[in-house]
């Protein structure tokens, strides 16, 4: 079974801090994704990566950056955390961009910015 793990389930940070959220997948998937989930808004794509060192902006990239130095690891970085970035963050991966390939999700990191 595919396993997607996220470094923390819960995280509390202060405004202005630099925050790193880590995601690791163990099935050699090409694509990796970061979403944020907010009540009533569903999941919104922040960034995705289709290969090592490659990234593309999603729908809401402002205030975030990403890093993919190794195929299995995809990091989301909040350069200067703000209270409006309090949210649930979900990482996902998929094998390729071929049709119908499902995305596999990690358990999520609930981030609170005070």
């Amino acid at each position, binding site marked *: 079974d595919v396993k997607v793990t996220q470094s923390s389930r819960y995280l509390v940070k202060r405004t202005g801090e630099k925050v790193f959220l880590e995601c690791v997948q163990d099935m050699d998937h090409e694509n990796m994704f970061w979403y944020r989930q907010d009540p*009533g*808004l*569903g999941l919104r*794509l922040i960034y995705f990566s289709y290969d090592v060192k490659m990234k593309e902006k999603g729908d809401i990239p402002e205030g975030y950056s990403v890093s993919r130095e190794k195929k299995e690891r995809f990091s989301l970085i909040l350069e200067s955390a703000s209270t409006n970035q309090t949210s649930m963050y979900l990482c*996902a991966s998929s094998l390729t961009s071929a*049709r119908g390939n*499902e*995305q596999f*999700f990690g358990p999520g990191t609930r981030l609170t910015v005070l």
Partner: protein
Amino acid sequence: AQSVTQLDSQVPVFEEAPVELRCNYSSSVSVYLFWYVQYPNQGLQLLLKYLSGSTLVKGINGFEAEFNKSQTSFHLRKPSVHISDTAEYFCAVRMEYGNKLVFGAGTILRVKS
């Protein structure tokens, strides 16, 4: 741009009753359609997907969905729900040429005894 509308934010239903969770999408090109389920404090898990072929798709846990191209809908159904089906359900769409999923806002299914 694609969009996905889940028409109900919450659906309360009694155990063993049937349920339908509605999903409509907007796209002028061919799409692939997915339903995911999120149990409390967990990530999302795929329930079923429509790629092509038969418009009735069967998934895990007794769920099924029907693709209706003319109505651009992909409603999820289960003939008899259990307490354990209490969760949030997300409909998602992906364009034929692309690797991004667009999600609906989610529907919380509450099964009552």
